[in-house]
């Protein structure tokens, strides 16, 4: 075959880390995918990250340590990284580049899509407003998720974020609607047993046919980690925009993704930003997180729940910091809560859902939701303040009112936040539970809830009327 059609070169100049420098051949495209063929016949994938007239720089998935410069060759594919997409991926397990690893039949593609996607036109977006009931009181009551939102879990090593995520995936539904839904689960650089935990969980609960798992385990090549969330989102977008499905994308652990990004940036000898992470990490993360959304005139949606572990539980670390600037809130896990035996160990004061206000209230959850939420947070904050104070001055010197607040804060943690791993509470149950706790406090302290809601939902009046 003529060399015009097969675009390949033997002129490999230098290999270093994950970078391969080759002599430029005509028609090299920026961002195109290449194959490196080793003498053994093994083929590795790579991507052009810098192309000039004389030299092309390629980043090789899986590293270049075993590339023999003299006897290997590089073949240019002429296109960017695309994956086959199809509705048949539901129920399947794929590797980090989207290839089946479950020994099932090959997937017949409906089309091929570039894993980088294209930016959603901001003018076409709909502000997300459909409440998703997760059945977890702390989330539904205090930090509600809506369709099209991106709400991450900021966790720490050893905390039960995977179990909580699995519970959300099991239980999440939109009230009063039976619509097509799917879960895309991406494991990024996590240990094999963590990945299997999710798969087993889906299998056990019989939900596997709604799930696509994209798995890049800790032992897979670092560079594939860059592709994994994008592969997952490309699948999610296909299901959402071509098949009208409401897709929840769970990605764990984004910290490993960011570390991979740092490693590659160092290999490219780029100027490092804060703590060695590249200066473009914000933009890079945004190209992942911003793929969540709802679009006017479409039934489908993409909702994201990325999970990340805060190095040293430090929320100002660049990874949670930049994530928090892009996502619409954050659910923060607290080690103190976990040590107290609270599951899920959510810190109510640090957590926030920015899109909550549009998803709750009459017709969506319940009329008293906003007031109850505000009252719970402010009363709990007061309780925590007094708890700190009582450490200094002792409980004896507190007023009876203050002691009520202490009791409230303790019971709020144990009875509202705390919940069984297989326990599902409806939003009504969650709000009623909240009212039972608020009843601990003197009624005149309940300033954030409307008086008519007190009359309607406060246990004192409820028991009178019934």
């Amino acid at each position: 075959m003529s060399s015009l059609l097969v675009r390949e070169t033997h002129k490999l100049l230098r290999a270093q880390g994950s970078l391969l420098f080759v002599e430029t051949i005509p028609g090299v495209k920026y961002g195109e995918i290449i194959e490196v063929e080793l003498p053994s016949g093994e083929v590795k994938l790579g991507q052009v990250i810098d192309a000039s007239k004389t030299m092309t720089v390629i980043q090789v998935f899986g590293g270049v340590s075993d590339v023999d410069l003299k006897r290997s060759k590089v073949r240019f594919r002429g296109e960017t990284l695309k994956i086959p997409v199809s509705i048949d991926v539901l129920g399947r397990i794929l590797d980090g580049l989207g290839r089946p690893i479950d020994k099932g039949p090959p997937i017949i593609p409906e089309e091929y899509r570039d894993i980088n996607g294209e930016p959603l036109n901001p003018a076409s977006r709909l502000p997300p407003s459909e409440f998703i009931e997760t059945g977890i009181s702390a989330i539904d009551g205090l930090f509600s998720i809506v369709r099209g939102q991106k709400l991450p879990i900021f966790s720490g090593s050893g905390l039960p974020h995977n179990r909580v995520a699995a519970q959300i995936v099991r239980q999440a539904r939109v009230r009063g609607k039976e619509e097509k839904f799917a879960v895309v689960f991406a494991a990024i650089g996590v240990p094999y047993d963590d990945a299997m935990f999710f798969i087993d969980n889906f299998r056990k609960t019989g939900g596997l046919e709604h799930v696509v798992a994209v798995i890049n385990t800790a032992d897979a090549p670092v560079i594939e980690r860059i592709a994994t969330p994008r592969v997952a989102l490309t699948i999610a977008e296909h299901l959402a925009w071509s098949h009208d499905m409401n897709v929840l994308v769970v990605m764990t652990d984004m910290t490993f993704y960011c570390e991979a990004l740092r490693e590659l940036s160092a290999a490219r000898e780029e100027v490092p930003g804060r703590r060695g992470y590249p200066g473009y990490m914000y933009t890079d993360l945004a190209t992942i997180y911003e793929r969540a959304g709802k679009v006017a005139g479409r039934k489908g949606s993409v909702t994201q729940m990325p999970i990340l572990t805060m190095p040293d539980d430090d929320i100002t670390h660049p990874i949670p910091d930049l994530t928090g600037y892009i996502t619409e809130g954050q659910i923060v896990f607290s080690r103190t809560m976990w040590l107290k035996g609270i599951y899920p160990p959510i810190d109510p004061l640090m957590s926030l859902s920015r899109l909550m206000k549009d998803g709750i209230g009459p017709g969506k959850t319940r009329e008293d939701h906003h007031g109850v939420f505000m009252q719970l947070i402010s009363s709990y904050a007061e309780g925590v303040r007094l708890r700190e104070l009582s450490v200094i001055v002792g409980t004896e010197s507190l007023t009876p009112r203050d002691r009520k607040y202490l009791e409230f804060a303790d019971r709020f943690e144990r009875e509202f936040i705390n919940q069984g791993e297989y326990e599902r509470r409806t939003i009504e149950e969650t709000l009623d539970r909240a009212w039972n706790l608020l009843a601990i406090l003197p009624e005149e302290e309940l300033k954030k809830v409307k008086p008519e809601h007190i009359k309607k939902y406060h246990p004192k009046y409820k028991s009178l009327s019934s």
Partner: protein
Amino acid sequence: MLKGRIYRVSGPVVVAEDMRGVSVYEVVEVGNERLIGEVIGVEGDKAIIQVYEDTTGIQVGEPVYSTGYPLSAELGPGLIGSIFDGIQRPLTKLEELIGFFIKKGVKQPSLPRDKKWHFTPLVKQGDKVGPGDYLGYVQETEVVKHYIMVPHGVSGTIEWIASEGDYTVEEPVARISGREVTMLQKWPVRKPRPYREKLEPDKPLITGMRVVDFMFPLGIGGKAAIPGGFGTGKTVALQSFTKWSHAEITIYIGCGERGNEMADALHSFRKLIDPKTGKPMMERSVFIANTSNMPVAAREASVFLGVTIGEYFRDMGYNVLVVADSTSRWAEAMREISGRLEELPGEEGFPAYLGSRLASFYERSGYVKVYGNPERMGSLTIIGAVSPPGADFSEPVTQSTLRIVRALYALDVNLAYRRHYPAINWLTSYSLYIEKLREWWMQIDPEYPQLREFFSKTLQREAELEELVRLVGADALPVDDRLILEVARMIREDFLQQDALSLDDAYSPPYKDAWMAHAIKLFYDKAREAIDAGVPFEKIRELKVRERIARMKNIPSTTPREEMKKAFGELYNEIINEFNALIEEVKTRV
């Protein structure tokens, strides 16, 4: 036009050869897809180009075409109510054409070419005109009269002026000494539009936020920064500025921020009724949306595009507010491009010219006498959000910004956690406009300087006492200090805190601010008097009128001024009466 070839591609930076003759800041079209780019450097026959669209798939050797023009904004009827990307592509139009994903290489004029606008002339044949003179106007929306001005560089005699009627932006509406003028004008975005004279602002830009208007007022044509970590309510604060401020035109630049947030702003601006005009906010707003996942280089351009459109409306004689959310993302875009160019980095990898580039943006603000007849003033106020990593204000973007701006609204994480909104910290925020604006405020209330000073001293003192309170408890303090703490709490909760979602209080007019301040000051003065008369502090804390003071912010801002005055008069009487009763009680007991 020149035609060169691509020599190298590295992300958004492309180097082209055979480009001798091209100049810096010239717009070029890159590759077979003709992506929009801008020359940012020339070396020999090579041009360094930043490309405003994704360069994936571009080949070495593909052509590069020069256009001969610098990156320019299209100015004319059709701006208001539009949503543009960073290089002024009309996003709503793009959606009609290509669906809800933004594809590259799509070209579409910024302003609609087929739409006809109703033009009314203001000059007649034979008139002598110069740059900036009104030729006529178009009623673009019910609230914006869009004046068509003589472009800069054109002057002479009106040989022909179009009669009143409907015209497209490309049809001529006048001929001035042989030159035809259309309603569409172009202006290079990186070049400030000229004005006659810059003046010191002597009026505030009223924002309806008490912590801003009363404590740290912003002059019209001023420049301010709002730094704040994530979750501090930066976007809500910025939206309050754009929604309630007294500007006649608002330009909202969403620069490297969230898409859903932009969607929320767009939808709320369409729904929300402007209390001053009774029309949706959208009828006086222009949006520029370059969200965080859109190409980085266009983010860099979006800020200059926004300010150029702002200057154009300023030149008509309007008070314009430009809000940029967030300048940190803009600076990061600069850092990324700079890194690709392998420039020597400054602090934290930002280019050494970070400070001067920030200044070139903020310096385009001002309260100015503009060119043209009739003589008129216009203003352009700039408020930039800053997103410091880890909420650490010592980082380069915050620090470089602080050297330029004259008002700082520092958002505070702890206030936000306590759900104190707007979470503007009263100890670290400042405004250098206070001196100039004192006169204006004294026309609202002659006692303004004393009231403001009382507030700021009380809050200062509270901060000093805080440490002590934590150790010994408030009840162990001397009664004077306990009063200070009580009044400081009142200032914080009953005055500074404002609910952006409550319609009664989201916007607070200056006279209401002053009356509210008086109520608190009166409470303090009467409390001092009572304490001196021997009234125990606990009695003061039990006064019913405290509850009334807490609720004074809920007096609807739409209440007619006279009626509101009466309501406050009653409140003052109540304060005086309750205290007098206490003092009487003590006296009789003695």
